[in-house]
């Protein structure tokens, strides 16, 4: 360390110069927010935002000609090249593990929390290179960049649902139509090999600043964790790239823990020892609990909107924020009843939380048969007003819907008027997935049970993956809360709800027993084909057998 110190000075100077030079066009800021959740968990979110001021996405009509040269200081060139090569206007990639519990945790700070990988992008239709062509290139390039099997987000999974995935930035007015492509990959997991390329996109890597807390050993042990890459264009500002890492920790997991207390060190096993010099803003935002007695150390220098804000660049380092609670954490909020009296005790910590999403969703695939089943979606409106939501299923062709069996029941009685505006693009076996979209109107304080019969596909033997046969993961359904506008049209609200993924068992031969399979197949072939072939090719004629010769 001592040997490095003389070098630090000129390096910092160089950094500063670069920062000053770059600040006119490039702007980097980082943020960490920490929230305590009602069920004892702690949610954290890292956000690293880079703004390319004044830049515009590449017009797809110029894809055939030579691109302008790219010079970035803090913006990652690797990603910039991909974006320009395929003329991507807006891009969202998320890699998540676990189920986001909307009822207890509310909406996540970053919307894309569906289990597994999800990629969606808006692209302008080009004259020579089509959207689908560039989509294929984009997912392969990103697969290489993030070490994830995004290459398998192929035609079997790609859909274009524009209502559920509206652009979060602005679409340039080039006079050409923009199209969305969306593909989920629920079986993909996020792990260290995805985090390393993610860190490489940051100007300070994980060496300094808030990013130094990104410790894979702790992040990937969190109950829920996920990373995201979001690129969008804002008309008056420029291109914004946002890298996020969200995680939900459980401070109550160890047997010794009795309170929800946490500290930066206990969560990440690291502290912030130095700031990132190129970050123009570097904040740690801690939401202060409203209903519990707590102590926080060090005291936040600034409190704004119920949150303590620490500026990493100015605060005393190493920074290790500690949150302590006076009371033991209890899932039971009512007074403990005397033993064996049977008043119902309540566990608000485990139930629906009033501040969170307007409705709760549960989706299951029923039936243990390998040939058919029933898709069931149970939605409970938790509000006193009718809630509208756009229901989207992008189902691979493995599961085929029987739309005529679609029924919505309230208390077991079929009710009309709940499902409206159905858009349905049926699947094509062995290629296109189903896109099913419907508007739901759920009456206040009601539970609606939507069911639909489905068939499970019978696969060709080459379509079975060569790995362990655990079943096929089905992507989450997506619900977008909608608002009824003045003119009777629906406007999307901010927020998106992903249901947990499903696993489906299809009829599968036991591939782990190749010898048995070969024997069975050969026997069948010999017995059936052999006989039929024999009969077909045989010439029938009368043979006279002399009975005397027999004896």
């Amino acid at each position, binding site marked *: 360390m001592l040997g490095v110190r003389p070098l630090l000075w000129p390096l910092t100077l160089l950094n500063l110069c670069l920062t000053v030079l770059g600040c006119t066009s490039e702007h980097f800021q980082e943020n960490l927010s920490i929230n305590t959740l009602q*069920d*004892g968990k702690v949610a954290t979110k890292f956000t690293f935002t880079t703004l390319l001021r004044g830049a515009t996405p590449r017009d797809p009509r110029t894809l055939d000609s030579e691109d302008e040269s790219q010079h970035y200081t803090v913006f990652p060139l690797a990603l910039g090249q991909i974006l320009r090569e395929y003329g991507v206007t807006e891009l969202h990639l998320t890699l998540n*593990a*676990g*189920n986001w*519990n909307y009822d207890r945790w509310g909406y996540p700070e970053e919307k894309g929390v569906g*289990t*597994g990988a999800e990629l969606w992008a808006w692209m302008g239709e080009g004259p020579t290179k089509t959207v689908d062509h560039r989509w294929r290139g984009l997912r392969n390039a990103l697969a290489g960049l993030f070490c994830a099997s995004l290459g398998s987000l192929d035609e079997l999974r790609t859909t274009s649902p524009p209502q559920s995935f509206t652009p979060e930035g602005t679409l340039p007015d080039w006079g050409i139509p923009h199209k969305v492509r969306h593909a989920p990959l*629920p079986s993909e997991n996020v792990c260290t090999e995805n985090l390393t390329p993610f860190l490489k996109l940051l100007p300070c890597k994980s060496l300094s600043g808030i990013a130094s807390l990104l410790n894979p050993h702790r992040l*990937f*042990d*969190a*109950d*829920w*964790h996920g990373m995201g890459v979001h690129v969008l264009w804002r008309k008056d500002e420029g291109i914004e790239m946002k890298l996020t890492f969200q995680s939900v920790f*459980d401070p*109550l*997991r*160890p*047997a010794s823990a009795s309170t929800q207390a946490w500290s930066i060190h206990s969560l990440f096993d690291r502290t912030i020892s130095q700031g990132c010099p190129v970050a123009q803003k570097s904040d740690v935002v801690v939401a202060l609990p409203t209903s519990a007695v707590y102590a926080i150390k060090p005291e936040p220098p600034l409190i704004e909107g119920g949150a303590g804000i620490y500026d990493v660049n100015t605060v005393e380092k190493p920074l290790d924020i500690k949150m302590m609670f006076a009371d033991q954490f*209890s*899932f*039971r909020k009512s007074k403990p009843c005397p*033993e*064996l009296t*049977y008043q*119902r*005790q309540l*566990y608000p*910590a*485990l139930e629906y939380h009033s501040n969170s999403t307007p409705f709760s969703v*549960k989706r*299951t695939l*029923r*039936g*243990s048969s390998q040939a058919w089943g*029933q898709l*069931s979606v149970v939605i409970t409106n938790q509000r006193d007003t009718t809630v509208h939501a756009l229901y989207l299923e992008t189902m691979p062709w493995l599961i085929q819907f029987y739309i005529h069996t679609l029924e919505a029941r309230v208390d077991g009685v079929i009710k009309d008027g709940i499902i409206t505006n159905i858009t349905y693009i049926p699947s094509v076996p062995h290629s296109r997935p189903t896109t099913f979209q419907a508007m739901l109107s759920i009456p206040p304080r009601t539970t609606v049970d939507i069911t639909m019969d489905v068939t499970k596909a019978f696969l060709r033997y080459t379509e079975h993956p060569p790995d*362990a*046969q*655990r*079943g096929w*993961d089905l992507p989450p359904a997506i619900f977008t809360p909608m608002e009824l506008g003045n003119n009777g049209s629906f406007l999307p609200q901010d927020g998106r709800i992903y249901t*947990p*993924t*499903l*696993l489906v*068992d299809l009829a599968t031969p*036991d591939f*782990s*027993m190749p010898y*048995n399979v070969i024997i069975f197949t050969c026997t069948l072939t010999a017995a059936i084909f052999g006989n039929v072939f024999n009969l077909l090719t045989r010439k029938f*004629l009368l*043979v*006279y*057998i002399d*009975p005397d*010769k*027999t004896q």
Partner: protein
Amino acid sequence: MDSSGNLIPRWRRVLLRLRESVLTSGDVNEKRIRRRKRLVDIITRRLTLVKTALFISGYLWFLLIPSPHLGRGTYIDENALQPGQVNTDWNWGDVHVADNYLARLEQIRDGNFTSEQRAQWLSEEFGKLGIASSTQRYSFSTSTAVCTEDSVSSTFSRVDPTFQHLNGSNAYAVLASPRHSGTEAMVISASWVSRIGEEDGTLNMRGVSTILALAGFLKRYSYWGKDIIFVVSDGYLEGMQAWLGAYHGVSQSGLSREPLKLTSGVIWTALNIDYPGHSFSHLGVFFEGLNGRMPNQDLINSFDRIARYTAGVPVTLYEHLDPREEPAANKSPSWLPQALYNISEVKSYLYQAKNVVRHMKYQANGRGSGVHGLFHQFRIDAITLFALPATGPHGFHAIGRTIESTLRTMNNLLERLHASFFFYIMTGPQRFLKIGFYLPSAILISMGMMFHGLSAWVDAGWVQENIDYEASEPKKPTTYSQKQTWKRRRRPVISVLCIMIATHLLGIILFSLVSSTLFMENYKVLSPIVFTAFASVPLLALQISPISNPDIAPIFLVLKVLNLCFASTVISIITLLNFSLAASLTVLVGMPLVFSSPSVSLHWRLMKFAGCVNLGLGWLLFCQGEMVQAVWNWEVLTVWFAPFICIVYLPLLLQASVTCLLPP
């Protein structure tokens, strides 16, 4: 030629001779047909011998199944399981937690709580641990009240005064696996009533406290790749049936239940814990499922390894102690001299025979051997760990470690348990018979029956006539005698099929009658009446006058043919689905069907008839308890045994009895 013959090497000469025998001069087709005829001839001439050999070898094979020389030691087939490879963390602190739960459960038991209050309490205990939990109420309406009245009403299960409804509440909790999507799940369950409680109402208190203590314990670890579902089901079997049905969205007539508020992913494996006593000496494993289904043997083997090496608890099959290891069980049966018993072969044979017979009993009647059996209907591999009540030395510490390690093993699974490890007979906890070592026994007998039927079919088609040689048709081949000739005759298949269909219809009528509420309420009075009514129906056959026309085969012969062929087909099919049932069928039906034939004397005819009918309908008089149980199993658990007996087994014997009564 001779000189050159010496030059040809010896192997070449052998080859030439072989070729000569196959390809001689003359028509190849003619030779082939001749060869085939000769083969058929050999078999037909020795058919009686072949049939007898098949029957004798089949029945002998049954006796060989428990032999200590047949079969092999168990092994782990699925490499992913890695049983017993983890350090267990369950310690005395957790045992203390379990003891505390037990003390509170005892208060609950003594407080005479309704099952709903109890389920509520359990659900709240899960809630205190921070695990999402809920309860589920259910109600079965059955025609058989008697069974539930006898066994469960003494416990806390509420039974309506009409004895027609079986109500209860299940409590369950879902521990969501951290870091995973929860698309897969494993279940740990305990029924409120223990398996020994079916007779005396013993409760599975320690099993339930183990589940509660485990819930708090398992929550501390982040390595679970599958959701863990804890289920405390009410009653013995019915609660779990209601819960599983609701989980998989299967509707069942006569059952009303609440839908589940919490769900999880696809359940792959399940462990059911039954710990009724104070302490235990062995862990017994029960594995037979509903309708003869079996769990993957890897699960049993993993549990066996873990219990022995991780927790140091000896494992037994069922509650059968091995006389070779346990002095307490080392007693010779009263019918066997001690000297003979002391031969180790005999001792092993008797012990393994005991296991096999127990297995056959559980599998044949389709009820399975416990709560785990209900899981099998949804392709979930499940077993019951039964803590054999004893004065020691094991307790919560050993069972907790066993379950923890078994769950880790189940958690290791990347895919469902598969391989061809579903067909086996366990002769001991570490010994089993592969399918190839037991299946042939039943198949040989069913082959014998088929051969017997086919030979009778040929007999029915031909009649031997003494006619002049000139008058006979030239095409007919004359065989042994020039004076006697074989003449084709018509086989009255349609009328025989009518008789068969009638017997099956009779079976359906009997089944709907037996499973009706009216019958079940007064079965003690009605059984003899029904028996007489159904037993007298075949007597109508006495009214059929013999056919004098020699061109038509006698009805009894054709009936016997179709009866035998049908029975043989049924047995062959069932061997794969439920070997024990097929084996029982071969024993019960095999010989009576083969020997059913009309006799000249009416007296003898009626004797044979009475034998067949008693075999088919005797359960109405002699096994009334089993009958009520079987109907209950059908109504509550949808076990196919009762309908099978009425609609398949009984008609087979009715057909045989008609064969005996028909005129020769």
